[in-house]
Structure formats: structure tokens, C-alpha cells
């Protein structure tokens, strides 16, 4: 008798979350299997890649990044268009770093202008992340949600300290919320319960588990995401069935391994290749664990991940 590979059947399914509108919308989730386990079920949509765009000119970024992206730094519109047109991003993730009150402290209105300009220039869907300051983000994201009404964008992140206002903005203007919790299955679920209790539909929520990069907690992130996924699929836990988004580009490119020059570490070889591989390995690992949307930085890493998709027959 021929060998029959054991097949796992899951009772749960990941929710489909639509981002964007019309012909250019994308859908995350929808699978009833662990990512790439297509012999056990179906994965109607391949994982998505959002490319990062900063609203300020980056300082101290790796040379590998400067070489390919440097020309558009300081111009978020050009940067976003380049990611869309030249690098094949599925989405743009606009990081509103300049709004940080402990940094440039740009006003809410300035942030909204940037969002509008980027939205006007691209046709692919948009994710807008604040600076990570809970209070400021709640103000910024509220206005961003309003300005982007009808565009069905993702706003984030909602955290324990501001989820009420972020979720309210998303409900009011029909946007998707990325809810961030510090790499813990239960805390992710708790935030989802709190947001759905407010009336935010589960179909408008993404889980951002605050991942770490290769060498900096990736294995922990991996196991937490995997457990998130098993809770969703095996235990059919409705509050864990949201797609997972990993804000990983910034984590990868702040590591020493991705940044350090050849002069400083000649034994580590070509820094460009090293950085790209660091990001790619992190990305593929997070995909294997169950991530549905990757937020990435280097075009070549994006390219390599897309090749991985192709090898799985996902386009």
C-alpha cells in the first residue's frame, strides 16, 4: 500500500480582511490551513507584502537601503510610487514617525497631508502606522481615518492605552485596525475582545504581535505566531482568527548584522547581501509561522520573498 501522508483537518478558518477598494483591493487571510500547508486545505490568498515608506528622511539607515531607496528619501509620495511601480509592493505602509512628540512632533494636520498625498499618488492599498506614542497616535489616527474615508485603509497600531479611540475612528470611517500587543497569545486575544466589545467588526482587525528580527527574538515571535494560528485553526477561537501583520522591516534593519559595514566587520562579508538575507530569512520564517502581511523595507528582500511564493505556486 502506498504511503499516505497524514492530513490534519482544522475546525477554524482565518477571517478574510479586505484592504483597499475596487479593483485594487487586496484580501488577507481566508485559509483553513497553516501557511503553505496546501495539501491539508486551501489558501485562497497568498500572504501580502507591504513596503515601508517613512514620512521623514531616514537617518543612519544601512548603506544597502540607501543605495536603492536613497533617491526618494524625504519624499514619501515618490517613495511610495517607487515601491508600487518598481518593486511590486502589494501595499504601502506609511510610518508617521515624524509625529512622535519625543521626536519631530509634527502636527496631526501635517500627518494628514502626507497621508492624503500618498493616497492620491498610489493605486495599491495603504497601511498607516503612527509613531508608537499611544496618546499621539490616537489623535493622529483619528484624523487619518477621517481623511481616508472610503479608502478602507489600515490604521495602527491600537494598543491597550488607546484602543478605544483608534477602534472608534475605524468604526466611524470604516477602516481596518491593526492591534498591537507585546508578543503574547493571550494579550493579542484580550485586545481583540476589547475592540470587538466596542462594536468593531472582527473583519476589521489585524493582529500585530510586535515581532523581533532574526537573532533578536525571532524564535519567540515564531512560536507565538504559530500558537496564535493553532488557536485560530485547531480551537476555532473566533478572537484569534484575524490575519497577522508583522512590522518587521524596522526590526531587521536596526540589527547590527544588517547594518554594520564591511570595514567594521570584514569577516561577515558583503553588507548588502547580508542585510537583504537577514530581512529575507526573517520574513520567510514569519511567513512559515503564520504571518499574513509582512511590512518590509528592502526591494531585493521583497523580491526574494516573492520568489519563495512562486516556488509554492502562489502568485
Amino acid at each position, binding site marked *: 500500500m502506498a504511503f499516505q501522508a497524514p492530513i490534519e483537518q482544522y475546525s477554524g478558518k482565518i477571517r478574510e480582511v479586505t484592504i483597499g477598494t475596487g479593483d485594487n483591493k487586496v484580501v488577507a487571510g481566508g485559509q483553513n490551513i497553516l501557511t503553505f500547508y496546501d495539501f491539508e486545505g486551501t489558501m485562497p490568498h497568498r500572504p501580502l507584502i507591504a513596503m515601508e515608506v517613512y514620512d521623514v528622511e531616514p537617518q543612519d539607515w544601512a548603506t544597502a537601503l540607501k543605495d536603492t531607496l536613497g533617491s526618494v528619501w524625504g519624499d514619501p509620495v515618490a517613495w511610495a510610487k517607487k515601491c508600487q511601480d518598481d518593486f511590486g509592493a502589494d501595499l504601502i505602509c506609511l510610518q508617521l514617525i515624524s509625529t512622535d512628540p519625543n521626536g519631530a512632533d509634527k502636527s496631526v494636520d501635517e500627518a494628514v497631508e502626507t497621508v492624503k498625498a500618498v493616497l492620491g499618488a498610489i493605486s495599491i492599498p495603504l497601511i498607516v502606522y503612527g509613531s508608537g506614542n499611544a496618546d499621539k497616535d490616537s489623535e493622529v489616527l483619528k484624523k487619518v481615518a477621517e481623511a481616508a474615508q472610503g479608502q478602507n485603509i489600515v490604521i495602527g497600531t491600537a494598543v*491597550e492605552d488607546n484602543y478605544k479611540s483608534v477602534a472608534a475612528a475605524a468604526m466611524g470611517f470604516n477602516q481596518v485596525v491593526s492591534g498591537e500587543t507585546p508578543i*503574547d*497569545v*493571550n*494579550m493579542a*486575544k*484580550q485586545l481583540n*475582545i*476589547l475592540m470587538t*466589545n466596542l462594536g468593531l467588526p472582527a473583519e476589521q482587525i489585524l493582529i500585530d504581535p510586535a515581532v523581533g528580527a532574526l537573532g533578536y527574538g525571532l524564535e519567540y515571535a515564531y512560536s507565538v505566531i504559530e500558537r496564535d494560528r493553532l488557536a485560530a485553526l485547531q480551537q476555532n477561537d473566533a478572537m484569534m482568527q484575524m490575519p497577522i501583520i508583522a512590522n518587521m522591516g524596522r526590526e531587521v534593519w536596526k540589527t547590527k548584522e544588517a547594518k554594520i559595514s564591511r570595514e567594521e566587520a570584514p569577516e561577515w562579508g558583503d553588507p548588502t547581501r547580508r542585510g537583504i538575507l537577514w530581512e529575507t530569512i526573517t520574513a520567510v520564517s514569519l511567513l512559515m509561522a503564520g504571518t499574513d502581511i509582512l511590512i518590509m523595507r528592502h526591494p531585493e528582500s521583497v523580491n526574494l520573498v516573492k520568489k519563495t511564493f512562486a516556488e509554492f505556486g502562489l502568485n
Partner: protein
Amino acid sequence: MPKVHFYPDNRIVEVEDGENLLRAAMLAGVHVNASCGGSSTCGKCRVIIEQGKAEAKPTAKLSADDIAQGYVLACTATVNEDIEVRIPIESQMGDSKAALDRELETVSYAGFLSAKDLSELFGEFTINPATKRLYVELTPPNLEDNVSDLERLRRGLNRQHGVADFNVDISVLRKIAGTLREADFKVTATILSLGGGECDRLVKLDAGDCSARHYGLAVDIGTTSVYVELVDLATGETLAKASEYNTQVSCGEDIISRIVYSLKKDGLQKLQQLVVETINKLIDRVVERAAVELDDIVYMVAAGNTTMTHIFLGISPKYIREEPYIPTATFTPTVEAKELGLRMPEGARVYTVPSKASYVGGDITAGLLASGVFKSDKLTLYIDVGTNGEMALGNADWLLSCSCSAGPAFEGGSIKNGMRATKGAIEQVRINPATLEPMILTIGQTKPKGICGSGLIDAVAELFLTGVINEKGRFNLELDNPRIREVDGQGEYVLAWAADTSIKRDIVLTEADLDNLIRTKGAIYAGITTLLDSMQIPVEAIEEILIAGGFGRYIEVDQSITIGLLPEVEGEKVKYVGNGSLLGARLVLLSREAKDVVIDIAQKMTYLDLSTNPTFMDRYVSALFLPHTDRDTFPSVMRRMKAILSA
């Protein structure tokens, strides 16, 4: 038992003869505003007796007109016959329908282990303490009968009491000659019989006949609170009790910080002195209350967690905290009280109840003894909710124990207006879902001073069910109500306004308090589920849950489940033991057989170390939510919440 029929809620409750009318309303699940704890000062609990009579104390809060119309203050009235009571609209403050919609269930308290249960339990052990006080009259020596004083005493004790052989403390020996002659050779000998192959010992010799005055002390040394009971060792009767915060609290709130403190220069000595000072203070208090002589207290049995026991005996707890977490001893010798600095007479002895492991102490072995788990055929979960939450699962055949760091919240520690369950502590709380006005009752029905464990369980459950706080214990500050406010960026709820309290400050429950309470209940719940899962026993299989701790009298099972402190079980399975550690200490004090049993418990029980358990932390985080992150395990709470949301 008389019946009370409440209108307009149309609820009937049967109460004990002489029950307070406000408490009857609480039992019936009927809301009556009451903000002074039942001390008859706020005058808000006005009700009308429509049928029957309720005896009520006179109060200036009611006019002659009111009285003529049948008004009484519920908190001053006692129920002695069937009555019908109307709650006027002003005492509900608003829409009574909202209160009805909420379907307030009639309350089921965790039944107390009744005095009858206890006497049955105690009845198994005959009173047989480790000490005896024996009066002897000796023939004075002469030239013919010239044996030594000690031999003379030995001869007398053997002839008159059959005590043939004993050793003697050198301190007694030094005084024997004087005492005998002063007392005309009529003396009382205190003999200590430890058993276990140890020779009896003469530890004290007193002039005259004091054999009828034979007292001992049962002590519970908690991380946060210390309890002392003075017990008549002849009758078994408790003559007086007293309790106090453990003065060591000034050196850290939990066990770990105490151990850290003990490692400082003279730290151990200081901690040892502090706890002894606390006990001494309590000894003074019980001696005064019972009007006995300190000199007649000859024995003490103390129970406490392993760290407390170590410190009490002056043994360094250092290695309890360091991997692989080893105590110096789980079985400790009987020592002289003087050696520890205790205010007890020379020769008096102290025994500490044996521990199981570094974090499962004599408090739990004592509790398992006192609550009868050791001989029960029911699968029992015993939970001692102390600063160190310790628990055990099992029955007469097996016992598995574990412990978790729960924090002192339920003893009132780390809670802004928290206090122990003593007079003036808010012990019951209801909140009207429509008006968010509270109904509070205090211990002793005096003006509130603070809030104790049972009141905290109630308050958190009520705030949660009325939507004042969310699952994370955060206040909904959008609610427009003067009792809900933000102070220094932190939400809080005013349980009692300053004017209604005895401390002349608002009594509040803050977000920081809620964080501490949620952590405490989370740790205990995580301990429970780890224990159950490690034996692969489902919650439904538990036949009895015994709760020990200094909560206060009224622990409501539903409310405890609502906040996720206890798993969903039928109310009648839950019983409240009170201070199990103290009860056990008293038993060991009174009976040498009980001591043998507690030793047996400590030897046979299995210990599950949660610090090395890979699932505990995960369970803990999932329990940091009201009632729990895994809501499917709390179906009845979810139903109650849904009912309220839709109302």
C-alpha cells in the same frame, strides 16, 4: 425562619431569625441604597414595612411623619417575623425596572464550615496537648528521707500521676530548691511530652496548684497578617483572639522581598524580631482580653508558609529563593519560646507546623488538617488565598500541592483603601446598574473605614457587570456619574463619600487597585488550572472547593466566579474555611494525634513546582482578564453579561 417579601421587586427571601433587614435585601438581590456600611448614618436605606413588624432602633434620620407611615432604616431593622417591605423609589434612586432586568440572582454565599462540622472534625481528636500541668504535694525531706529535691519531685509525680521518667530543663533545676520550699512542697509541674521516642521533660515548676490554668497559643504567621488565639488546653475552648498586620510588611510585601531583605546585614535578625514583636503584641492583647496570667501559657503552635517559619525560627530563607529552591528544613524542632524572644514564661515551648516544600508551608498542611481534606472521600480543591497563594488538590488517598505568588490584595494590602476583615471593613457591595449607586455593608455595621477581601471581590464583580470597568480593569470614564472620576490620570470609583466614612476621606477603588486584584486572582486561577490539568482532572470533577484566607465572612461564589477567581462550579460545592492555618494550628496545639496527622500530610503530599512549569506563565497571562481570556470557560458569566448588555 421568617420570610421577607420585597416590593416592587417581588422577591421573597428566608432569613435567620434576627437577621438585619439590609442584609436580607442583599441576600434577596434587592437593591437599596446604602452608603454608610449599615451604620445608620447616611439615612439612605429608607424602606416601608407594609405588613408585619420589624424592630428598628430609633434614628434621627426619620421624622415622626415617616415613622407613622411605616418607614424604617433597613440597616437598623431586624427581621423576627414574616414581613412585607416596600422599597420606595428614592431608596433605589431611579428605575427599579433596570435593576430587575439585570436579574440579580439571589445570593449564594460560600457556606461556612459550620461549628457542627468543626466539632465533628475536632471530635475525632481527643484533647491531648503536648503539655500537662500536674499538681503534686510532696513530703518535705528529713534526715531519714533525704533524696534530692529532683528525686522527690520525680517520686511524687510518679506516685500521684504516673509520670515515671523525665528529663529536666537546667533552668528549672536551678530554681527547684527555692520553689519547693517557698511553696511548702506543694507545686505544679509542667511536663512536655513530645512523643516520637523523646523522653518527657519537666519544663516549668510553679508554686501552688495551677493545674487548672493551662493555656496555649495557636498562631498563624502570614506574610501580611498574623493571628493569635489563646486556647484553654484543658477544655479546648478559645478564650481570646487577636490579629494584626505582620510588621515585617515594612520590609517588603511579598515573600521574595522578605528573603531579599533577610540577606542584608542583620536583615534576618531584624525580620525575626519584627514578627516576634507582632506576636508579642498580640499575646498581650489576648492575655488581657481573656484575663489570664501570662505565666500560665506554656505552649505555642505556629503555622506559616515556609519562609515565614524560617524567619520566625531565625533560620536564613536564602536558598528558598535560589535554584533549586531548597528550604533548610520542612520539619523543625520544638524550641524554647525564650530563645525566639517571645513573651512567654521560661520553659514554654513553641512548635511550628511542618512544611512541604519551599513554597508550600505549614499554613497549608495545617489547613488540610483542619478542613478534613486528609480524610475526605470527596475530590477536594483547597485554596489558601494568602499573599502566597497555596493550594492543594486531592482527598484521603492523595494530595498534590502548589503555590503561586498572589500578592496581598485580598488581605487589603497594596489596595489604596484596603484593610483586613475587621470592624469597619466594607464586606459586601452591590451596585445599582441604572444609577451606579452602591449598597455597602461593613463588618459590625459601623461607618466604613476601608474594604476587605470579600468586599473587593464584590466590588470588582459589580463594577464589571455594570460596565463601569472593562475586562482589563480599566474605567469607562465616559460614564457621567460623580462616583466615577479620574484622579492623577487614573480612573477610580467612589465606594463611600468622605462624610459617610469613619476616616473622613472618600473610600475609592482605583485602577491600580484593580490591577493588583486582577493579578492576584489571575495567579490563583492559573494555579488552580495548572493543578487540575497536571492531574488531567476537569473542573466538573471537583466535588468540593474549600477556601481559606482572611477574606471576611461573606464570600459570594457567583461574584468570585464573575471575576474569574474561581472556575465555574456549582455554588454549593464551595465552602469557606476562614483561617485554615490558624484552625490547624489550634488542632495541633490541642492534640498530639492531630500533630501526627499533620506530619503525615506533610510527608505524603506531592509538590508541583510552578516556577519550573512551562504552562503556568501562559495560564497566568490568560487569567489577567475579567473573567478570563478564554471566555468559553465562563459560560454563566458570559450569559449574565449578555443579559445586562441587552437590558
